[in-house]
């Protein structure tokens, strides 16, 4: 005790330990919000950091929000990743260029972290170079005991944020018993003889001396001739950790042989650096309410890709917002589990079982035998399917980047914020189930324009005050109920493979889960809401069946398509306006003037999605245009083409047998003028919905009118310029 009293004292409202990306972002945001922040790190900056230096789009976006545009723009945009699977198979991942979402970049951590620290200091955060040794809670405050060059120091703060990395000292202070790190990585910089492509290369799994290891190697382009090359491995319980340095040497030697043409010779320019990586099965939550864990200290590194910076930075923003919200309410600044929840929302809750699965799949892909028991206990089919179906985690995709959120923000930023809360709530409500469910449902919701139904409920429910809490439940209910029949149709009755049974089980369970969650949310709005929601769900099932029986039917009428669209998307959108009325405190009948709006917009949304799918492909899975044709799903443009060009029926039948002829069909749809007709109809319906919203004249009429135009804008922005040119 006497030493603490004798030590020089520092005071701060909030002490953030660790000035990496997580700590700096939290500190910068807190300081900007007017808090007194002391940022503590054992190093002085700039300093080297063992890392791949790859920044995902979310990390780049946070950096831009902190004003680091100049640094960001100095690094090349990375448009794709090349995944080499055991040197035998190569698959390219294109990062979609979506308006408002930056592309990934590679920036050395030395530069990046120093710039982030600068951003925090610019906003008023103070910096103290000290090693933190222990933490004491006393009364309403926390006291950190540390060592600086000048000797011992004591820091008193109301709240401590521990962002001190994978081997977090503070985490060990609060939880006795050291938890061993579960993954390790090492990297070294190399000068390459040839200029590097702007591509992130990943080799998976790691094959060293004929042995397959649970891990991967990377080559990331930091400069034209400067590569960050490294390897990461997951610790296997029954095996000792191999020498990382040896692994890296072997990987580089291998690259020089197999990637010789791409890189030329590789000349090391500094010593290798290695470190543990923070991967945990669950987000770590501090038991002490005055301490919040963040970034690698909380274990938020993606268990599969090993990406940690995006989640660390996103977590820093969320935690800062959470702390600020609490401090405004007054009282002691105690977070407890709320800190975990805030960080957790920015974490891909895929869970560590996915990494078990992916490891097992890697082994399988290489013809090695996979440990059957670990596959079984981790529920392999669900998780591996989640991996197949959702190229991007629900937690990685910010709702702010969706077109519909943009449309709301333009007219009423508070509605855009509310939509963000609906998205958070959706993730929260879905997350206590299997990761597959969360991921697949979210994938469907954001696949095209984003959560349009929730946006319509919020905009039509806008009133003078802030939205009531039921507004968020309404948003969740309308999004999940719309997704249910889609899920069933998407997954059930797919190709008759061995996996059929698994597909069915997944489809049913996810569909039911969506349906029950929407019911729970609607129940909060009362019996009238449940009755309306139930009717919509019945209509959705009927529409789904109408579509199902029309599969492969080349004589399906456009009228049948329109009827199904009214039953599903149209009814879903009408429900959203009805929930809007309930949010305003009125009854369902008050939504009557918006009935035509819902109907027209619903049909336009479906048509827009179909046009884009047919001509460009799903934007989350680009390059697979017309994939639905092979499954006998004939969209309205195709039906219009059949009207104009009856001989197309023969091509469609042929295509059913051999699924490669999509291009030929798409050409007929274009040349027959059917595509032009479908685009015109989409625009016309969007316009009709807009006029209807304007005629309604409610408080949210303007944002509602903006949402109405989305389908047309979406088609125009995605469709290639020459897509409507008839040959």
């Amino acid at each position, binding site marked *: 005790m006497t030493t603490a009293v004798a030590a020089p004292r520092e005071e701060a409202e909030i002490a953030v330990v660790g000035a990496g990306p997580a700590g700096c972002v939290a500190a910068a945001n807190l300081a900007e919000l007017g808090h007194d922040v002391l940022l503590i790190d054992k190093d002085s900056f700039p300093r080297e950091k063992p890392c791949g230096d790859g920044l995902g789009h979310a990390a780049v976006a946070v950096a831009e929000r902190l004003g680091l545009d100049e640094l960001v723009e100095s690094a090349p945009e990375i448009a794709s990743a090349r995944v080499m699977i055991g040197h035998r198979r190569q698959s390219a991942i294109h990062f979609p260029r979506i308006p408002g979402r930056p592309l990934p970049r590679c920036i050395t951590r030395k530069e990046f972290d120093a710039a982030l620290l600068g951003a925090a200091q610019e906003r008023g955060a103070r910096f103290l170079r000290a090693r933190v040794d222990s933490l004491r809670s006393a009364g309403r405050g926390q006291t950190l005991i540390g060592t600086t060059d000048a000797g011992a120091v004591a820091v008193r703060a109301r709240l401590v944020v521990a962002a001190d990395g994978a081997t977090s000292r503070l985490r060990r202070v609060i939880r006795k018993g050291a938890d061993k790190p579960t993954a390790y990585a090492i990297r070294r910089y190399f000068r390459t003889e040839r200029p590097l492509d702007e591509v992130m290369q990943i080799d998976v799994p790691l094959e060293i001396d004929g042995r397959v290891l649970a891990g991967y190697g990377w080559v990331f382009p930091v400069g034209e001739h400067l590569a960050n090359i490294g390897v990461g491995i997951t610790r296997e319980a029954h095996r000792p950790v191999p020498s990382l340095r040896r692994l890296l040497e072997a990987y580089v030697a291998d690259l020089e042989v197999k990637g010789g043409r791409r890189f030329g010779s590789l000349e090391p320019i500094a010593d290798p650096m290695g470190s543990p990586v923070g991967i945990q099965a669950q987000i770590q939550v501090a038991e002490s309410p005055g301490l919040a864990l963040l970034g690698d200290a909380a274990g938020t590194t993606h268990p599969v890709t090993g990406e940690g910076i995006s989640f660390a930075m996103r977590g820093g923003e969320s935690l800062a917002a959470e702390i600020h919200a609490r401090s405004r309410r007054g009282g002691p600044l105690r977070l407890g589990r709320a800190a975990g929840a805030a960080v957790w929302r920015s974490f891909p809750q895929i869970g560590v079982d996915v990494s078990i699965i992916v490891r097992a799949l890697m082994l399988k892909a290489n013809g090695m035998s996979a440990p*059957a028991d670990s596959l*079984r*206990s981790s*529920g392999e089919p*669900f998780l591996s399917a989640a991996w197949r179906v959702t190229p991007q985690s629900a937690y990685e995709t910010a709702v702010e980047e969706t077109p519909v959120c943009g449309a709301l923000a333009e007219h009423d930023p508070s509605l855009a914020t509310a939509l963000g809360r609906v998205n958070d709530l959706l993730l929260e409500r879905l997350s206590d*189930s*299997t990761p597959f469910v969360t991921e697949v449902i979210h994938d469907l919701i954001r696949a095209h324009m984003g959560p349009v139904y929730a946006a319509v409920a919020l905009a039509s429910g806008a009133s003078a005050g802030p939205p009531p809490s039921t507004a968020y439940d309404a948003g969740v209910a309308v999004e999940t109920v719309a997704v*249910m*029949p889609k899920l*069933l*149709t998407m997954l*059930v*009755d797919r190709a008759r493979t061995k996996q*059929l*049974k698994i597909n*069915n*089980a997944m*489809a*049913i*369970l996810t*569909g*039911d*889960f969506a*349906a*029950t*969650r929407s*019911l*729970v949310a*609607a*129940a*909060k709005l*009362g*019996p*009238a809401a*449940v*009755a309306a*929601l*139930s*009717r*919509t*769900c*019945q209509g*959705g*099932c*009927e529409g*789904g*069946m*109408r579509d*199902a*029986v029309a599969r492969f039917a080349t004589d399906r009428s456009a009228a049948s398509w329109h009827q199904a669209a009214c039953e599903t998307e149209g009814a879903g959108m009408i429900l959203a306006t009805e929930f809007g009325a309930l949010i305003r405190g009125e009854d369902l009948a008050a939504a009557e003037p918006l009935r035509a709006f819902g109907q027209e917009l619903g049909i336009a949304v479906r048509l827009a999605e179909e046009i884009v799918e047919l001509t460009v492909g799903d934007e989350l899975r680009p390059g697979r245009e017309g994939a639905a044709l092979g499954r006998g799903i004939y969209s309205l443009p195709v039906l219009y083409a059949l009207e104009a060009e009856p001989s197309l029926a023969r091509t469609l039948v042929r295509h059913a047998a051999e699924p490669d002829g999509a291009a030929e069909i798409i050409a007929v749809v274009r040349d027959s003028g059917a595509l032009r007709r479908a685009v015109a109809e989409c625009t016309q319906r969007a316009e009709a919905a807009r006029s209807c919203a304007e005629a309604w004249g409610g408080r949210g009429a303007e944002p509602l009118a903006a949402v109405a135009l989305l389908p047309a804008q979406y088609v125009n922005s995605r469709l290639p310029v020459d897509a409507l040119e008839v040959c």
Partner: protein
Amino acid sequence: MADEVGIALALLAGDSPLRESCQYIVANPGKRFRASALESAAGYGDRPDDPLVGRAAVAVEMFHAATLAHDDVVDDGKIRRGMPTIGAYAGNLAASLVGGWLFARAGELIAEIDAEAVSRFAEAASVVCEGEMIESRDLHDVDRSRARYLVSIEAKTARLIAFSTWLGAKVGGASKEVTERLERFGEAVGMAFQITDDILDLTASAESTGKTPGSDLRGGVYTLPTIYALAIDPVLREGLLQDPDEEDLPELVERIRATGAIDAALAEGAAWIEQALEALPLSDPPCEHEQQLLSLARLVEARVEEARP
């Protein structure tokens, strides 16, 4: 009862593409166990003849029918109650959508009652769905514990029966205390019901069910007797790990029987019946609805006897 479900289904629009598949459910009504439990529970209140009681009974049967339709898709089941399943003749997508439709229709009927009924229904439906998820995650897991098994059947079976008796008592206007007792009764009967159902899969003859005894084992569903037997017989474990074929089943069933696990599971089923009877509110002399609930419990008890090899 069956008539009312029929009426509700007939509410479908004439051109609904789901109509045909829904008719099938009317034609194949099953035991209507949940509807009977609900109507009997309503007898404990002062308005047993409230029209909402009948609507609520239709709702719980529709919800149950929805879970069966979806169950058959998950298990790829071809026969139920001696008839082909919806999936078998109309395809799995139809079965899924019919299930979704029935579930939504049940929700619409419950919404006629009140906010409490609606939120309890929403909660029960979520729990049933989560029970199915727990079960599907436990498939083929030879280390499945008794506790996990009980959690799963509590959620997927007992919860809906408990909801039925609770809802009946509430709509019928029973007192709070009686309503709670009836809910506990439903819960315990539901547990006994599922445990015996699972035992019957191992013991009932092919003639009575149309299925080979032990078909759950092939599907990787390890129920209470199997869980008990696995703890005793290491050879059984090996047998299950090797993904048994149809012809391996008699031997596996015999191994389970030899461990005495079936008797142990039967005793557990009987204990739940005991609990149900303890929870049942009594009147003196016994009245009609009490007799009905007693006979439901006896029905399950008789199944316990039937399941005895």
